[in-house]
């Protein structure tokens, strides 16, 4: 597709291209009427040069410079188009008539013009001045098209010395090297500065590059342009249906022609202190970083690094100590920085160069970032003693009275004790609707101090790891046994954790006492007697034979499984043992398995035979023990809460020792 055709009365913008309806005449590659055969047509004479009908070469017609005339030029009107950098050669014939050598001279000439017909350069050929006695001699010039040259014209230049009265003639001008026709791609470009309307009739289009023609309000310039037309299309268009959005940060999802990525929106600048203490003032984010306060770039909270924009306030240099800044809050247009013992008031500005410390006072401070709130002309904050304010003319922490929070110091101080101990800092805010400063203490008041829990049941040999729960009051707590004793083998830490291995069963009574930071106490009494007591014997795991100090040896024979006995799944248990030393502790733990009969037949001649039956499903009538004890102790213990003990029979002959 070519450029659009020119249209009459159309508005054209600068840069518009058109092609003419009527093409211009093609460029001529040769001079016009170079031999003067057509008379002076196509020539422009200047100086004293003139058309002559006598003395020509081959014919009578030529250009002549009369005698006693210094200079004349016959300039051919043909505009010869030559590409920039290409060469044009012009040749003509000169005849000096009767002139003597050096009196007259003539030569071929090439003159270069730009698109506005301004002469750029003239190149001369060899001068014919030798006095030829009426002979014709050629003059030739080869010239290179200079930059900006739109076309060239060829000429015959004739000169004579002042006192010489003979004629000199020129004829037969010709050229080579000019481009024929129109340049390829010749179109016309609107070059006026503003939009304009074309005329009602087509202008006379110039056929030479760079030349212009005025067309009403439009100025057209001949150009050889190639044009590429780009049409914009959106690169990122969402689809018709919403994608299933991923929830992992960094995950991507396709949507139409878009790839979406889930982002965290975290401030990733490595110089961001990522601290808890933050304030936003002067189009910047300020954040405490130990003893200094860093700030972000103006209006860019993601940038904490740009020099002369992001930076820090040297708060640590402004006081006797370098405590970490704990509170940042806006006060009027300034930034107040507080640590535990110092107050600083900074003038802050989007331009870091304009930041400066305005005021500083040691001896007042705060550690409660979220309790500070600007209210009108004051900055309310929570000091070590209660709620205080910073006013325009003073910063007050009158520990006795006077400030707005003083009347509630008693309440606040108590609550602060708990907040500090519980690591639950208070939160303050200003509620404009009520004109009130609210200070909230989480989990306050705390519940009454108490000790809770119960040592789990166990038997002799069980490992115990149990912690009593202490709640309420003011931590930290101290836990101790205030009365009685833990079962033998157990001990308790100050945190209420009971550790150890039950070394002995039986009854135990003890009291656990917890004391909080205020000195308040709470107690829990554990009374583990009777059915709540601890089993004295346990053989659910290998249990050592207790060897008395006198070193009695033990020999036992069992009809049941081997030592240690475990009879949980047997219907009938029979043990026949002879104990001559040490302790034999058969334990029946049938759990939920019924046992029809339990029979122990033992001869104890020394040491102890301990029979423990732990069963809740066995008929007590089925229990029978036949034991001959000639020494030592036979202990028969029935742990059964649902049947009368009276139904248990024991036939025992005790020759010595004790039956319990």
């Amino acid at each position, binding site marked *: 597709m070519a450029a659009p055709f020119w249209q009459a009365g159309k508005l054209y913008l600068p840069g518009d291209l058109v092609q003419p309806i009527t093409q211009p005449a093609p460029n001529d590659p040769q001079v016009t009427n170079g031999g003067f055969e057509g008379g002076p047509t196509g020539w422009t004479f200047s100086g004293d040069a003139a058309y002559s009908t006598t003395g020509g070469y081959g014919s009578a017609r030529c250009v002549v410079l009369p005698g006693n005339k210094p200079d004349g030029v016959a300039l051919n009107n043909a505009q010869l188009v030559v590409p920039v950098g290409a060469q044009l050669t012009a040749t003509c014939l000169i005849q000096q008539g009767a002139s003597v050598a050096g009196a007259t001279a003539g030569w071929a000439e090439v003159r270069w013009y730009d698109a506005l017909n301004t002469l750029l350069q003239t190149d001369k050929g060899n001068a014919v001045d030798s006095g030829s006695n009426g002979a014709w001699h050629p003059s030739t010039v080869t010239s290179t098209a200079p930059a900006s040259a739109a076309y060239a014209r060829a000429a015959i230049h004739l000169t004579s010395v002042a006192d010489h009265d003979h004629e000199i003639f020129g004829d037969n001008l010709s050229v080579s090297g000019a481009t024929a026709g129109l340049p390829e791609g010749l179109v016309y470009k609107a070059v006026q500065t503003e939009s304009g309307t074309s005329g009602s009739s087509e202008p006379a289009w110039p056929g030479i590059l760079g030349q212009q023609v005025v067309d009403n309000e439009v100025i057209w310039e001949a150009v050889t342009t190639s*044009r590429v037309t780009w049409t914009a299309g959106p690169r990122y268009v969402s689809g018709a249906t919403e994608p299933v959005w991923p929830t992992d940060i960094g995950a991507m999802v396709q949507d139409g022609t878009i790839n979406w990525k889930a982002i965290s*929106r*975290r401030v990733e600048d490595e110089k961001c202190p990522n601290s808890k203490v933050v304030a936003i003032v002067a189009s910047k984010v300020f*954040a405490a970083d130990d003893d200094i306060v860093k700030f972000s770039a103006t209006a860019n909270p993601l940038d904490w690094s740009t020099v002369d924009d992001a930076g820090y306030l040297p708060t640590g240099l402004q006081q006797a100590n370098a405590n970490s800044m704990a509170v940042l809050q806006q006060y009027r247009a300034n930034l107040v920085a507080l640590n535990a013992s110092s107050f600083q008031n900074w003038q802050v500005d989007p331009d870091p160069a304009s930041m400066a410390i305005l005021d500083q006072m040691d001896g007042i401070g705060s550690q409660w970032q979220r309790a500070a709130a600007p209210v009108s002309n004051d900055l309310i904050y929570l000091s070590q003693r209660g709620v205080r304010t910073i006013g325009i003319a003073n910063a007050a922490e009158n520990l006795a009275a006077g400030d707005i929070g003083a009347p509630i110091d008693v309440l606040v101080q108590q609550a602060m004790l708990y907040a500090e101990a519980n690591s639950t800092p208070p939160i303050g805010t200003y509620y404009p609707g009520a004109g009130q400063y609210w200070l909230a203490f989480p989990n306050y008041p705390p519940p009454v101090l108490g000790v809770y829990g119960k040592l789990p049941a166990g038997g002799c040999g069980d490992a115990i790891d149990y912690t009593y729960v202490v709640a309420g009051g003011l931590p930290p707590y101290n836990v101790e046994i205030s009365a009685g004793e833990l079962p033998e083998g157990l001990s308790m830490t100050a945190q209420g954790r009971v550790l150890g291995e039950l070394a002995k069963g039986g009854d135990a009574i003890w009291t656990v006492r917890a004391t909080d930071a205020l000195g308040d106490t709470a107690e829990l009494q554990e009374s583990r007697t009777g059915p709540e007591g601890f089993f004295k014997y346990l053989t659910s795991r290998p249990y050592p034979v207790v060897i008395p100090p006198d070193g009695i040896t033990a020999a036992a024979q069992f009809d049941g499984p081997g030592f240690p006995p475990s009879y949980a799944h047997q219907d009938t248990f029979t043990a026949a043992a002879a104990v001559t030393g040490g302790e034999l502790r058969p334990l029946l733990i049938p759990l939920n398995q019924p046992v029809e009969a339990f029979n122990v037949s033992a001869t104890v001649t020394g040491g102890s035979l301990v029979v423990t039956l732990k069963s809740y499903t066995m008929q007590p009538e089925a229990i029978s023990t036949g034991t001959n004890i000639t020494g030592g102790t036979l202990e028969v213990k029935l742990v059964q809460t649902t049947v009368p003990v009276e139904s248990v029979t024991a036939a025992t002959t005790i020759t010595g020792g004790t039956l319990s």
Partner: protein
Amino acid sequence: MTGRIVTLNAAKGGINRLRVKGGADPNTLYDLVNGYVDQAGVSRSRPGTKNKATLPTGATKGMCAYDGKLIVFSHEPQTIPASTPIVECEVLKHPSTPDLPIKDIHFAGPFLGYLYVVPEFVNGDVFHYWLQRGTTWEPGKVYLPGALVTPTNPNGIAYQLDSGTEQFAVWVRNIARVVGDKVVPTVDNGYYYTVTDVFGPAPRSGAIEPTWPTSPGATVFEDSDVANPTPVPGEQSGNQLPPDVTERYGSVGSGSSPWRNLNREAE
């Protein structure tokens, strides 16, 4: 001063501050703040405003007002009951342990149109977040590079335009062009450009990148003067020495360097 106690037995007379000899009238009120008297003459407290929000139990931390809603925070998307449409949950994930819950919110306030939030995670790590939101996703919409969107049902996470699904060649100069060629600008502006027309003896890109229009269907021409082509500027290697070192340091010509002037004064 201790006054005589008068028991209000019925507010028949409304508020009346005229006091006559004898003291207060048990049938009138001197003042009543934030209350009203019902038809039975009983003073009642005026009900206040009430905002009730049902949040996932124990799953969110903090709360602040922003953009007409109450914003809460969690480390994972939370389903806010439809009965509390004014509540929205923003998701803040720990950068290295995404499933780490949030322990506390130390700061949350709007800055430059978006919330600036400082959460502390249960392991004690504190990070800063600036919760840019962008716009709500729309179907068939043209987005530009860097665009941020949030789902139509917000899940607390923002999504940024990362790339396109179709790859294009980047515009380069002095390349012959034919109809159908597609390029994207050297600096992504969200549009690709298709050659829809060419004419002239040698349609090609010029030496200077066009000023690309940014609306669908808009066109731009890239003209190249065949007769007088614009010279292509040479590439700078970046480590070339200047042609004249003395010129570089201002030690030739009239001499404007301070040390030169000092020397001259010394002479």
